[in-house]
């Protein structure tokens, strides 16, 4: 019998009940909650007269539609100008109070994007099952945790039963071999992976990311990679536990302490795929082939290296692809353009659950330091992932570097990644964004998103158009 994959191990250790039809009842260790996908779940509990199974397994914070300007944030939830957003955030506060769930509200320095906050607090731990009503929950797989997004009915199901009805996914290994080039980041790696396997390439799979190119990444880089597993169609992204994982977790507020810590570390050391484990699918990329990436279209798979020409619809043979490319060209307004350097940018967004952690801000600050954003730009904003990331950045003086260069320094939240708050693109505007989705209208009605790494976004902000950051920093 062959060995187990990391995914198999996590699945087996959480299996409450296997059903005959292949579905199973899986135990959930941690549920993260935010204001957008939880109100109907709490309402469902109330209507049925149910209580949460185990309140200590939940952690909540508002993130999706909180405003990010100082002006709207000084007064906490009361400062939200949009009345509909305000009701939603207030509803989260009320529900957490009513059911006794720990919440980092808008006045709490620990508030931020759920996928930044969970790991930062040590609430996310190796070996856990983690769910949240948000598809980017795959982020937490970076810790060797089984983590995925769920819908609101499932949020309610987990609150009420501590379990989820699931069907086991198949195993895919995506290996990235070799050392990454300077200025090629985790974001470029994951965009290159999505470009290689497509947005549905991982559907039905749990993807484990491995190889030296992944192992050499910091925890923050690993979170960026797992975060976008869903953009390749896989609900679950995973990375094996190693010293990098354990060192990151140690000492965090909710991390185990004392004897529990020793016991936990011993258990976590086994959170790797066995040497003889069989994967249903293996994809291999070479690090040396990965260059800074930029998306040109309206799906994350529509991605190219910065030095490549924009692919044309007429060169595609697959009719579905041809039509999709033609539609994307039109929506993105690419007629007459050959490369992405030809696109004049209107806005730059550095933030989101993909790229708003301290290392992301450090590298962006490094690129813009002593420079000025292009005068053609309407706006460039930096939105830290949490209050604590913001505080750390300010301690390091990063905010003054950004502001001196002409970028706005904001309060934490999801912000322009999905534009539920006031931070959005106007119709036809091009944005260099460190977020995760370039769908039509994602960042605002008619807005045109190009996904990039923080370093690439920072360089683009200065140049006013896309440039290869590894060349840019030489000048």
């Amino acid at each position, binding site marked *: 019998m062959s060995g187990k994959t990391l995914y198999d191990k996590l699945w087996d250790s959480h299996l409450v009940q296997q059903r005959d039809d292949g579905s199973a009842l899986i135990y959930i260790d941690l549920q993260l909650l935010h204001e957008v996908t939880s109100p109907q779940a709490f309402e469902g509990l109330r209507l049925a007269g149910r209580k949460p199974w185990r309140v200590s397994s939940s952690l909540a914070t508002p993130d999706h539609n909180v405003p990010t300007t100082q002006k709207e944030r000084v007064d906490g939830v009361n400062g939200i100008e949009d009345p*509909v957003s305000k009701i939603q955030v207030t509803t989260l506060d009320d529900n957490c109070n009513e059911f006794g769930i720990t919440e980092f509200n808008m006045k709490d320095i620990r508030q931020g994007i759920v996928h930044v906050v969970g790991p930062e607090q040590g609430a996310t731990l190796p070996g856990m099952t983690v769910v949240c009503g948000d598809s980017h929950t795959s982020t937490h797989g970076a810790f060797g945790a089984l983590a995925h997004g769920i819908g609101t009915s499932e949020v309610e199901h987990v609150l009420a039963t501590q379990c989820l009805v699931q069907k086991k996914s198949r195993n895919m290994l995506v290996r990235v071999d070799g050392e990454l080039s300077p200025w090629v980041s985790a974001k470029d790696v994951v965009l290159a992976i999505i470009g290689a396997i497509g947005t549905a390439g991982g559907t039905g799979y749990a993807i484990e990311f491995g190889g030296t190119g992944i192992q050499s990444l910091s925890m923050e880089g690993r979170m960026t990679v797992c975060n976008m597993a869903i953009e390749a169609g896989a609900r679950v992204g995973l990375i094996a536990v190693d010293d990098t994982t354990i060192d990151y977790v140690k000492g965090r507020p909710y991390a185990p302490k004392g004897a529990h810590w020793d016991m936990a570390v011993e258990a976590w050391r086994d959170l790797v795929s066995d040497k003889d484990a069989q994967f249903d699918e293996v994809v291999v990329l070479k690090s040396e082939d990965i260059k800074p990436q930029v998306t040109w279209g309206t799906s994350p798979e529509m991605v190219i290296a910065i030095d490549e020409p924009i692919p044309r619809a007429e060169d595609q043979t697959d009719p579905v692809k041809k039509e999709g490319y033609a539609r994307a060209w039109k929506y993105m307004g690419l007629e007459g353009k050959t490369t992405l350097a030809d696109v004049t940018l209107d806005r730059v967004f550095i933030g989101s659950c993909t790229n708003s952690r301290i290392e992301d801000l450090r590298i962006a600050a490094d690129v813009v330091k002593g420079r000025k954003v292009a005068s053609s730009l309407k706006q460039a904003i930096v939105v830290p992932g949490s209050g604590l990331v913001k505080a750390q950045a300010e301690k390091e003086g990063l905010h003054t570097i950004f502001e001196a260069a002409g970028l706005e320094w904001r309060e934490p939240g999801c912000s322009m990644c999905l534009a539920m708050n006031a931070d959005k693109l106007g119709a036809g505007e091009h944005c260099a964004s460190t977020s995760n989705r370039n769908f039509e209208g994602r960042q605002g009605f008619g807005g045109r998103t190009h996904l990039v790494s923080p370093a690439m976004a920072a360089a683009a902000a200065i140049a006013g158009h896309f440039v290869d950051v590894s060349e840019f920093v030489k000048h």
Partner: protein
Amino acid sequence: MRPFTKHTGLAAPLDLANVDTDMIIPKQFLKSIKRTGFGKNLFDELRYEDEGQPDQECTGRPVREDFVLNMPRYQGASVLLARQNFGCGSSREHAPWALDDYGFRSVIAPSFADIFYNNCFKNGLLPIVLAPEEVDQLFAEVAAKEGAEVVVDLEAQTVTSPSGEVFEFLVDTFRKHCLLNGLDDIGLTLQQEDSIHRFEEKRMAAAPWLFLSREQ
């Protein structure tokens, strides 16, 4: 949940691959704290010329005449024909809520994104995977004849095309059971309360650090 047994309805063909949930229901409508009322904003950006706002009255908004759901012949459609990877992206359950609220009972496509597929079953909306050539045939038949209806029979696990051709589809036994009977799966899971408690005790012994209360 409303049960789904057998449904006969007008089919509307949405000939677009990789339709994401942002497209199905744009973010500004996710601010609602209710499960209903999303139908008027289903496919908002494809359907209307202007940018929709929450709580806005939609009659009188400028519509995109060439969008399938705006064509007179597809008014009242209750089965959506779609292309590959339908429902990709965000996990928002507002997507199936919007489809359901609009009046759709079933979506037929060659493939679906996982989370969306899952979410449909919780809302009495039946997602059906058919082979690409079968979906092609349904698109062709529906385009050929105005008012073409398809029959979706969950009990028999079949889709009958307007010309009478029968296609079989697969569905998990448990999901089928819940949908046929309109069962609340929380209630069903809670019948396993003892198993969950037993598992929890075992897990608590193996990983006690996961069960500490959170100090504020």
